[in-house]
């Protein structure tokens, strides 16, 4: 399987898994936004989502595999690229490369650390701030759990920081996956560059709006 070992093949696998992860980020955002409809919104959504355990687990395994492929090749390609460039210039000026494009590995690993924390908190309920209980309709009270945790300024700040990392990662990742798939030409290259930044910024702000609204006291128990 040359796609697993060749330079371009591995990039294509990173691109496809990246696209799957972006799709997940979109769906997750739409799901999360049910919190703005209050306990009835997000609690009903969460119950509905978990009503089919085999499907939930199939989805989790699929996303886990996509993340694993994305990270393995990301680390492998970064190490190869570092080796290929001894970086010994006394003076080096970048004309086009950005902070985001040069730090994909670090923003990616920070997002990974965030995913681990996020799952530990709201899926495994393993952090001390998490309040687990049932609402009046006997559903898991996700609304209370999220509003209580985000009421803690430090936790909300950690989420904001993680979303900034995600913004940096996607602002290079979105134009990059389009280029790697070959869906690009002279006219679309600058447009996708700008579009990637705009979409990443919108996603970041949309995600940040949840802890921000809770911290501002606009969503209360």
């Amino acid at each position, binding site marked *: 399987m040359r796609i697993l070992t*060749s330079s371009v093949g591995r990039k294509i696998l990173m691109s496809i898994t990246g696209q799957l992860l972006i799709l997940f980020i979109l769906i997750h955002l739409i799901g999360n936004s049910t919190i703005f409809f209050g306990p009835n919104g997000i609690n009903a959504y969460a119950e509905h989502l978990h009503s089919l355990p085999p499907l939930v687990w199939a989805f989790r395994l699929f996303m886990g595999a996509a993340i694993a492929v994305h990270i393995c090749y990301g680390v492998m390609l970064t190490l190869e690229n570092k080796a*290929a*460039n001894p970086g010994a210039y*006394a*003076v*080096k000026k970048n*004309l*086009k490369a950005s902070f985001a494009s040069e730090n994909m590995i670090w923003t990616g690993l920070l997002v990974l650390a965030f995913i681990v924390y996020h799952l530990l908190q709201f899926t495994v309920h393993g952090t001390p701030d998490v309040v687990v209980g049932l609402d009046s309709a006997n559903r898991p009270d996700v609304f209370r759990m999220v509003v209580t945790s985000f009421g803690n300024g430090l936790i909300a700040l950690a989420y904001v920081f993680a979303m900034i990392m995600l913004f940096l990662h996607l602002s290079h990742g979105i*134009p990059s996956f389009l280029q790697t798939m070959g869906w690009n030409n002279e006219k679309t*290259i600058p447009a996708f560059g700008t579009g990637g930044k705009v979409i990443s910024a919108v996603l970041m702000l949309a995600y940040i709006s949840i802890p921000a609204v809770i911290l501002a006291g606009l969503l209360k128990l």
Partner: protein
Amino acid sequence: MNLTLHVWRQSGPNQPGKLEQYDAKNVSPDQSFLEMLDEVNEELIKEGKDPIVFDHDCREGICGMCSQVINGVPHGGQERTTVCQLHMRNFNDGDTIYIEPWRALAFPIVKDLIVDRSGLEKIMQAGGYTSCHTGGVADGNAILVPKVDADYAMDAAECIGCGACVAACPNGSAMLYTSAKVAQLAALPQGKAEAAQRVCAMTDAMQEAGFGNCSNHYECQAACPKGINVKFIARLNREYQKSLFK
């Protein structure tokens, strides 16, 4: 004008090197960068010192031999300009200029500012050609090429193989160079027949020669003295995907 130069000096491959300081005096703004270095070398020779060794050939901006990173940018940062066509009028009296060789794992230093760029030749040998029958002279225009395809192929063929893309790339990748040849030949009827095997052979040769992978920084296009566009890398990626189904 008078300039202070910091030039990378290295006596040979695998030898330790360092930046050494030289004064370039009475430099004319009409001189090219290489002519300025020629005069510095004449002074060094007069003093019985080793002159600065650098690659050059046509001095017309088309051979791809000159290869210096000036103040952190391959070829000095003037758009679409090789070092030999960079003129001293772009500098000011009293400027300090750093001059270094191309730096990449695949470009070992031979001496001072000269690097071994045979890695690029290995990529070309792997697939930068079309196979054809030899014999009688073929009729002109026997194979029709649409004007847009011919123009596209000519844009890709502008690459002079200097290696600035590799020197500029944070990953030491030669993807722009490789893609220019892959795209040029894939766009023409004569090259289409071997397009699938070419893209695989050339990208494999790139990897084997020690070049890194492309991660779409686009630093290569910005540094390219011929303005080769990264759209050719997108084309290479498409050609690679097509090869997976052949």
